């Protein structure tokens, strides 16, 4: 057991008591009380992850996404859904963000599956003008009624969670509490500090810049792996992941890497299982990714034998991503 895992377990012991039960609702917005999620014993449990092929950002994405969601058995009827894309910053030369076609397809699919409400929320970590990034990434022009459904999570009213790693209190935007289901619409990318950024790391965008700044440096001081795990502990139980691996990013991700076509979307309700599957597709050993090691068997399943793969096999879509020197040791044997 490495130090990061020990550190997390120590924190989790205290935090499990606080957890959701420690959530203190807002004065006017946000729920007043949230019950603690049922802690399922994970030892021996199985998880399902769907890998669906999508060769390009065409109109066929919606069909592929629908197929994957239904195969995972997700029921969104009557639920308030928050889609959380990975919208960071923009560079014409690469592919930093969840592609607009995936976001538009998700909006359409979750509406057609009977969700009561579908909104899109993001709090970018580098750029303050979220709407400018949304313009550059064509979200504002290609997502129907974008301005009506979009929430800038950096600048919302907030509520507090008791216990986040070693912090007594941590604040989040009210819309993330108000949602019944958060869909992590992540991008399949390498990450120069975390190894890979997938559905779990994508939740850094739930942290409000209005309190923690740009970048969200508090998470770096807590520790990136610990923060990723804490975000998954709090929001994972009401999450579904859809990772855009149609074109991912290899090399010096998450901003300055190079596009890597893989032609898949990876989906599931168990975020660590989805991310571990993505790692295997990328040619990364999930056991060498610290936050997945910390989350394994506590927040989700990462062992390959205990993930029931639906759709494509890992081997049939595996596309080795180029890794920077700091993560060459994480190459899947």
């Amino acid at each position, binding site marked *: 057991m490495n130090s990061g895992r020990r550190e997390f377990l120590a924190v989790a012991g205290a935090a499990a008591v606080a957890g959701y039960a420690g959530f203190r609702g807002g004065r006017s917005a946000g729920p007043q009380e949230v019950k603690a999620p049922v802690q399922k014993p994970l030892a021996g449990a199985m998880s399902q992850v769907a890998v669906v092929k999508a060769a390009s950002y065409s109109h066929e994405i919606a069909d592929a996404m629908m197929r994957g969601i239904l195969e995972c058995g997700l029921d969104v009827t009557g639920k308030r859904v928050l889609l959380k894309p990975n919208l960071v910053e923009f560079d014409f030369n690469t592919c930093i963000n969840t592609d607009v076609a995936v976001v538009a397809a998700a909006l359409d699919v979750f509406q057609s599956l009977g969700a009561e409400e579908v909104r899109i929320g993001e709090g970018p970590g580098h750029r303050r003008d979220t709407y*400018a990034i949304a313009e550059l990434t064509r979200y504002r022009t290609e997502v129907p009624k974008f301005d009506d459904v979009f929430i800038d999570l950096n600048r*919302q009213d907030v509520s507090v969670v008791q216990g986040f790693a070693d912090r007594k209190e941590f604040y989040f935007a009210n819309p993330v509490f108000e949602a019944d289901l958060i869909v992590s619409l992540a991008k399949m990318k390498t990450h120069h500090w975390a190894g890979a950024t997938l559905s779990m790391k994508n939740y850094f965008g739930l942290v409000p810049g209005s309190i923690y*700044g740009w970048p969200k440096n508090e998470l770096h001081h807590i520790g990136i792996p610990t923060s990723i795990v804490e975000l998954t502990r709090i929001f994972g139980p009401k999450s579904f992941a859809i990772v855009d691996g149609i074109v991912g990013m290899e090399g010096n991700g998450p901003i300055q890497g190079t596009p890597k076509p893989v032609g898949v979307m990876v989906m599931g309700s168990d975020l660590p299982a989805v991310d571990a599957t993505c790692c295997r597709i990328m040619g990364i050993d999930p056991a060498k990714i610290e936050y997945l090691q910390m989350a394994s068997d506590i927040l989700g399943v990462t062992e390959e034998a205990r993930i029931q793969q639906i759709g494509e096999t890992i081997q049939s879509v595996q596309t080795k991503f180029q890794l920077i020197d700091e993560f060459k040791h994480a190459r899947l044997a």
Partner: protein
Amino acid sequence: MANSLQARLDALREWQNADGGWGYFPGKESWLEPTAYAALALHGEPAADRAWKLLSSWQMPDGSWRPSERVNVANWGTSLCVTIALARNEFGAPLRQGVAWLMGTAGVETHWLGIWLARLHISKADRDISLKAWPWKPGNSSWLEPTVHAVVALRQAARAVSLDTVARRELAERVRIGEEQLWSVRGRDGGWNYGTPLALGIELPSYPETTALALVGLQGHAGLAPAFGIAEGMIAKTPSALADAWLAIARRLHGMNAPETAAEQRPDIMVTALQALAIGGNWKLLQAGERT
């Protein structure tokens, strides 16, 4: 231009909350940042007095300001409150405590241990961590935007507040180091991002809004004409109402004309207030004064 200003000021008056503050968006709870910018835009009006009354109630015992009524975290917005207090000629204890808090706050990267680890090549730093600047919140590293506002507020305080010689020298020194830090985090492309030119030794790009903010923080400095050109070029390619507003303010603070904003007017209170500051005359409330 008068109509454009009036439309924005009218919108701000209409969006003011009953408690005297403004949220980031109409109908939302009051937050320090939009309230501070709106109060500066409406300076001299009863609306600004109500806003200051609310902000005054958010000052914490350590002299800092919290970012909203419900958030119990010391915040970089303390600099904005110092600027407002000075604009209102309120030189009492709240102002002095706010200045003292800013003087006592620095990014954690400047802790002596971190500096020695970097000097011994045990840890790597992508910027000069010996230069004390300001974080978004205590316990974090320093970044560009909080440093810009702290530099402006402390330069204003140095000009307006009676201080003994030692305190004045300390304040001037802290400002000098803060400004040096801003120069040191300039990107190789000539602009600024959120506050580091490199990550793991690799160059990072600059952004228009942070470049414009750096220009606000470096009032009175020479050699910045290329940076204005860079910010304008970035805005031309990547439209941003926020960057556009900050650049117009920066141009005015550097004695230049600012073209009227072409940005659409959105129900975004912070951007609307900054646009009103840029268009009207109240950008002068962000003047830092002579360099010492």
